[in-house]
Structures are given as structure tokens and as C-alpha cells.
């Protein structure tokens, strides 16, 4: 089974979010970049499937050369080869076009992504790639098991879960608890250096959105403490000051 895992290159979840150049660029001073937490699930699932389904795993990122360390990390976790599409990931549509263009040239039985990137939170690349290629896409998938040419899956919906089956090939946007996160070991890090690593050029695609600028939410005011013996006061503040009920 051939699996493609598409990963994002995003600021660590604890990063301070700030912008520079008149709020037009992300301030990456002292920012650590990681594989998006949802794609950590996707890559971990794919590596599990090397054992359970004899999978061969390719990991892909659409990004500049600065994203290579996260691709190397995915190789260290256990992916067999890496591909970087040399392009700036401008918006969801552009990224979906690049990924779909690549998949069309190859053939994969299964494509795993994260449910959404944790920087731009679009959450639609999987569905767009599926629509462009005419293959199903499901998200957020929290369980996946292959049985012959059918996969049994669980998807999270508002207030619960949906159980379903689909035929391969398809795309799944992953979230917990689809697999246990894997951490690269020393052997993985060593072998990652010699695994195939391809850089391919982007295909032409129109842009359908343009970023104007960024802004930060207004700062929170100071907290008001209420005495634990005066819970009535909290109720009063919520009702008459905050007016939430």
C-alpha cells in the first residue's frame, strides 16, 4: 500500500504570535517550527501502517527550503521518502492545487493529512484536493482500519461520532486518537539522512485570495477576583456587569 502524508510546517503551539512590517508578516523571531500536531497524528498512523498494512510512506510539504527540517523529522519518525514542492503556501486553494497536481502524477492508495493547519486553521485542503481529483475526502478522522479494499473509519461530528466505510483510494484529515504520537529515535534520525528526498517545482495556479494584513485581538483587561465565600457576588457580576445572563 502506498501512502502519502501531507504535513504542515507551523510555529510551535507555545509560540508568541506577533507580526512585523506593518502587520503584513509573521514575526518568526525565536519561533520554533514543528510538524503540525494533526499531521503528527497522520504521520504516526502511516508509520503504524508500515507494519499493519505493509505500507510505503511518502511525506510531502508545500513550502520553501526552510521546511526541510520538519520533513527530515518525518523521515526520522519512519516515513520512507520525502518530497518538497518548492512554493510558498499562499492559501488553501493554492496548496490544494499543488498537492492534487503531485498526486495526479503518482498513484496513492491513501492520502493522510491533518484536520487543519494550526497557523491558518483553514481545514479545507483535504476536501479541495479530493474534489479536484474526484476522490473522497473525510475529516476529522479519529480511527482508521483497512479491511481489504475498504477502510472502516470514525469521524468526529458535533456532539459525537460517525462510523463509516469507504473504498480506497481516499483522503483522510486526521486527529487524535488515530495513532499514538511517535518521537524519532537515534536510529531513525541517522537513517533519515540517507532516505530519498526530492524537491520538485510548483505548478502554475491562480490565486483566489490575497492577504492584506494581520491583527491581534485586543488585550484582556485585568481579572476581577471574587471571594470564594461570596459566590453571590460572582453571580451579580455576571448578570449585571458582564450581562451574560
Amino acid at each position, binding site marked *: 500500500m502506498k501512502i502519502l502524508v501531507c504535513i504542515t510546517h507551523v510555529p510551535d503551539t507555545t509560540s508568541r504570535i506577533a507580526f512585523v512590517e506593518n502587520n503584513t508578516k509573521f514575526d518568526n523571531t525565536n519561533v520554533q517550527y514543528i510538524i503540525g500536531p494533526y499531521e503528527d497524528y497522520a504521520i504516526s498512523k502511516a508509520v503504524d501502517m508500515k507494519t499493519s498494512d505493509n505500507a510505503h510512506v511518502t511525506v510531502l510539504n508545500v513550502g520553501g527550503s526552510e521546511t526541510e527540517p520538519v520533513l527530515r523529522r518525518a523521515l526520522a519518525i519512519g516515513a520512507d521518502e520525502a518530497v518538497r514542492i518548492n512554493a510558498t503556501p499562499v492559501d488553501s486553494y493554492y496548496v490544494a492545487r499543488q498537492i492534487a497536481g503531485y498526486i495526479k502524477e503518482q498513484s496513492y492508495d491513501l492520502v493522510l493529512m491533518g484536520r487543519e493547519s494550526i497557523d491558518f486553521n483553514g481545514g*479545507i485542503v483535504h476536501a479541495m484536493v479530493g474534489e479536484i481529483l474526484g476522490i473522497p475526502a473525510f475529516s476529522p478522522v479519529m480511527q482508521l482500519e483497512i479491511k481489504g479494499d475498504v477502510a472502516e473509519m470514525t469521524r468526529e461530528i458535533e456532539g459525537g461520532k460517525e462510523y463509516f466505510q469507504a473504498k480506497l483510494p481516499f483522503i483522510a484529515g486526521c486527529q487524535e486518537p488515530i495513532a499514538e504520537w511517535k518521537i524519532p529515535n537515534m536510529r531513525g534520525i541517522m537513517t533519515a539522512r540517507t532516505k530519498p528526498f526530492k524537491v520538485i517545482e510548483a505548478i502554475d495556479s491562480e490565486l483566489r485570495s490575497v492577504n492584506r494584513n494581520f491583527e491581534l485581538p485586543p488585550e484582556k483587561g485585568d481579572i476581577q477576583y471574587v471571594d470564594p465565600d461570596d459566590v453571590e457576588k460572582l453571580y451579580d457580576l455576571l448578570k449585571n456587569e458582564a450581562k451574560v445572563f
Partner: protein
Amino acid sequence: MPILVFLEKEGNNIRKSSLEAISYACAIAGKSQSTVTGVVLGDMDEGETSNAGLYGCDKIIHLSDPGFNQPVISLYAEALNTVMDKESSEFFITAQSALADPIAAKIAIKQNASIATNVTDLPDMGEEFALKRSIYSGKAYENIVLTSAKKVISIKKNSAGLIENEKAVKVEVSDLKPNPDKLDVQITGKDKSTGKILLPEADIVVSAGRGLKGPDNWSMVETLAEELGAAIGCSKPVSDAGWRPHHEHVGQTGIKVAPNLYIAIGISGAIQHLAGVSSSKVIVVINNDPEAPFFNNAEYGIVGDAFKVIPKLIDVIRKNK
């Protein structure tokens, strides 16, 4: 050219978030001299039509074929796309959900439309069509310009607001059937709490963490939630430990909420949890550790023992009813 709004149901009722989408669409319609057409698929309670009208829906197209009773992304997307073509709509607007966002993405591809999800504010419709959307899990916003003629917009829950704007709704029942060639999935079951307020849609959320010490101590949280008409949430360690189901996990990798009131009980406020609640309008933190970082991100706080404070709070709420 009407603005099309996908009206998602919970049971046979239109979701509150979809009514918010109607309000949002109405504001755009007001600026562009167009009308708002809601589309409902599958069975619907009769009173729902006037409910949609209350928020400014001019017309409802009801795809009443029973084949739509089970929501399937591919079938819904195909049908909604057909309606969009027929109505020559340039806008497809929906409230964000696990069903609606993939549908929106598919329609954007089918229609060669620009798309924006996680949208928090009305568009700036000057020379350019610009939108504000939430990014970095609520820690920032992005202003983007949608450049295609057609636009698909998915609104973040609890950000558009419900604005009454009563209209007499015309209902058009359509016999459009699901296209069996597009069925790409077999849904085998659902495991869903019914009759409860959906966490992502709730106006009030009561959330608890490891400070509650064990799953058996949740009954006071449930009582508080019931008294407030709130949904229940939890922190990641709590859902990881299996004390509560994953669909209650609020945070960076869980559900992101934006209620009017978020009450955090025994949750320290790790940055990953804050990422899921930062869009809340008012946050109350109850924790016995005065150093809990959550206190730095809240409007009101009580440093105290949740097992004493919560029963008192329940009493006060009951007394004031």
C-alpha cells in the same frame, strides 16, 4: 441573484449557527441589493420556516427527498451546487461545522470560487471584498481579499450574532434527488448525545479539568451546566484519561469554542487549552491554585476549592431563577 445559505439541521430543526449564517447573509444582501435563500435538505419541522424568516431569510428551497435525511458530504455538496447553478448565486454562505466546511470546500472547487473559512466579521465591500478570519487558533486575525467573482464563506460559530429581521418566507419544495453516482461512503452508525446543547454552538460552556480529581466528580459540573443551559467541556488530560469523551475536549487539538461565558473549573490553563477558548467573550476561572496561568486570561476569578464553590454557585443560580 440570491445569496445562498446552507441551513444545517440538528434533528429536524435548523441549527442556531445556521440562523446566524442567515443574519450574516442578510447584512451582505443589504449592501448588495440581493436576497437571502436558505437551502434545507431532508426532513424539517414545519415551524422552522418562520424561524428562518425571523432572521431575514426571504426564501427557503427545501430539498425534501428522503435520500437527504442522512447527511452525506458528497451528496449534499452535489445538490447544493446544483441549486447554486440554478439560482445563479454568487455567494454560498454557511456556518462552520464538520459537515458544512467540506461541503463549502467542494463547492468552491466546483464553482471556481474564492473561499474563506473561520470568518469572524462582516466583509468590507468597498473596491475589494475583504474578510476577517480567525487564525493561529484564535490568537490572531487575518484580513484577506477574495478575488474571484463567486465567493464561499464559512462563518465561525458565535461570531456573527443573531439579528432579528422578520420576513415572510416563501418556501419552494424541490424534488431534486441525491445523485447515487456521487455516494462515496457508507455510514454505518452514529454515537451522539441527543437533546443536549452542542458544545461548539453553546452560549455558555462549563468546562472542568484534572482539578476535579476523577470522572465520578462530574455530577456537580453536569448540574451547573443544566442550571445554566450550558454545554459541558473538558481539558485534554481529562479526555486523554477517558474521564470524558473526546468530543468534549476543548483546546488546540480539540473543539474551539466562542461562547458568551466560559466557566473553567480546575483547569490550569495551558496555552493549548487557551487556544480553544480565547474567542470566549467572558471567562470565569475557578481554581485552588492562585498561580494557575488561566487567571491571566480571565475576566473573573475565584481562588478556592471547586468542591465548595460549585455547589454554592448552583444554589445561587437556583435562588435567582
